[in-house]
């Protein structure tokens, strides 16, 4: 070695070598050559290398993602498989190992292997770069997808909320509609009852008119409730020849239990019961009876409720219909 070690370029580069900041492979090779031959340089290298290693402790520890540990251990499993696979020995290799022209072939192999490694290294670098680019693209795609999903999720939540609101409104409307339908059904039922009553009344009226025309009856008296407003009404028709008469009534309420309606003809203050009858569901009845005396001998007619089969000489119940006879 020429000059002092301090002036030796390779010795000066030991610091740069351990810090991996030398500019060229030639400089690195010079340092490695020096270290391999000079004990002082070896000690200098060891001390500086250890000091450089401590610089890593000047960075605060940072926990890597937990998956990294698993990933490394998984990779060792595959690596172990690779390393346990013994490479097959080719005839060429055996030829080379035989020692025949060993040095020449070895030199060629070194060049070939070095070239192959160089090509492979370059190819691997390219592949790693390409993979990194692809990974970045995928990360961006994942990020975009995540944003889309978040947006879709928000839209979906809004739609769900809107649908819930509409369903609640529909439920409320349906409840109202149900009540309306129920009310309408009740009205229809009542209308049906009223219609039946009307049909029956018309049938009775028609029958009475028919009878009156056919049999020569004459309507003599219209009865109504004289004491309180009521829908009830009645009439008495008398045959022109003979003592046959017909009494028809509408709109009477159902009599009390054990009671029936009684038709009275009253003459000279003396009531005379001529018929006892019940009414249909709509309060109608048509009763044929024989006049005890000509109708003109009676001044009025009345309808009261009396116990069934126990009609006295005088009305005991309230008068629900009455009229003067003509």
């Amino acid at each position: 070695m020429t000059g002092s070690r301090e002036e030796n370029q390779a010795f000066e580069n030991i610091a740069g070598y351990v810090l991996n900041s030398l500019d060229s492979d030639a400089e690195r090779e010079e340092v490695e050559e020096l270290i391999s031959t000079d004990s002082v340089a070896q000690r200098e290298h060891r001390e500086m290398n250890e000091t450089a290693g401590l610089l890593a402790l000047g960075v605060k520890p940072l926990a890597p993602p937990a998956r990294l540990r698993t990933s490394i251990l998984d990779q060792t499993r595959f690596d172990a498989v690779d390393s346990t696979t013994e490479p097959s020995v080719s005839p060429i290799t055996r030829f080379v190992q035989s020692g025949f022209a060993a040095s020449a072939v070895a030199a060629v192999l070194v060049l070939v292997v070095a070239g192959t490694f160089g090509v492979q290294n370059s190819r691997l670098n390219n592949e790693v770069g390409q993979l990194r680019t692809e990974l970045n693209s995928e990360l961006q795609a994942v990020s975009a997808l995540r944003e889309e999903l978040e947006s879709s999720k928000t839209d979906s939540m809004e739609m769900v909320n809107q649908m819930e609101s509409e369903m609640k409104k529909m439920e409320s409307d349906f409840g109202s509609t149900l009540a309306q339908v129920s009310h309408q059904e009740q009205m229809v039922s009542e209308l049906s009852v009223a219609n039946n009553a009307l049909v029956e009344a018309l049938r009775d009226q028609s029958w009475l008119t028919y009878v009156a025309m056919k049999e020569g009856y004459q309507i003599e008296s219209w009865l109504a409730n004289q004491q309180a407003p009521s829908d009830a009404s009645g009439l008495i028709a008398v045959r022109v020849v003979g003592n046959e008469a017909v009494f028809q009534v509408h709109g009477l309420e159902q009599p009390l239990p054990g009671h029936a309606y009684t038709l009275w003809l009253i003459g000279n203050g003396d009531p005379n019961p001529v018929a006892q009858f019940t009414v249909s569901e709509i309060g109608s009845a048509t009763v044929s009876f024989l006049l005890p005396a000509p109708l003109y001998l009676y001044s009025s007619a009345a309808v009261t409720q009396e116990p069934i089969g126990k009609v006295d000489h005088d009305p005991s119940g309230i008068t629900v219909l009455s009229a003067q006879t003509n």
Partner: protein
Amino acid sequence: MNYQGLQDLELLELVGEKDREALAELYDRYGRRVFALAARMLNDSVSSEEVTQDVFMSVWRRGGTYASNKGKFTTWLFSIAHNRTIDELRKRKRDRSRQNDDIDDHLNIESGDMSPADAAVAQSEYAKVREAMEDLPTEQKQVIELSYFKGLTQTEIAEKTDQPLGTVKTRMRLALKKLRNSLSTEMGAQV
């Protein structure tokens, strides 16, 4: 086997016998350190994970060939980590596809699953090394920062600091020597 009770070199010997549990123990001891160094230099979590994985795979493959006369295990480990990270940094410069912005060095210590004792040791080591760095003259400290943590070559440092190349080399050498003196006092047997 109680791996936690084994020394680093004992674990490394088991790694040489392809004992995965031994590698797992070494990872548990130094994974945070390696990852932190890569993250400090690369400022990129994904790349730092790649570097950390490569480093421990190197330990897995080369553990059996490690000779203790080469120095401490951690020196060897951090040397692998540093060189691998430098390679990544310089590849980025070539690709110019990524930008390595200056980063804040004052990352918080991630305790993770570290025991309080380990966290205390880590904090102590960190404080001593940072103190030794702060004690360096500004020019020497700058050279260490640019070479070790930024991955610049000596020529690049000379251009960046507008100093002669020889001056950079001298400052680099003096800085390491001064650091060694400081840390041998502070950390005793470690250096």
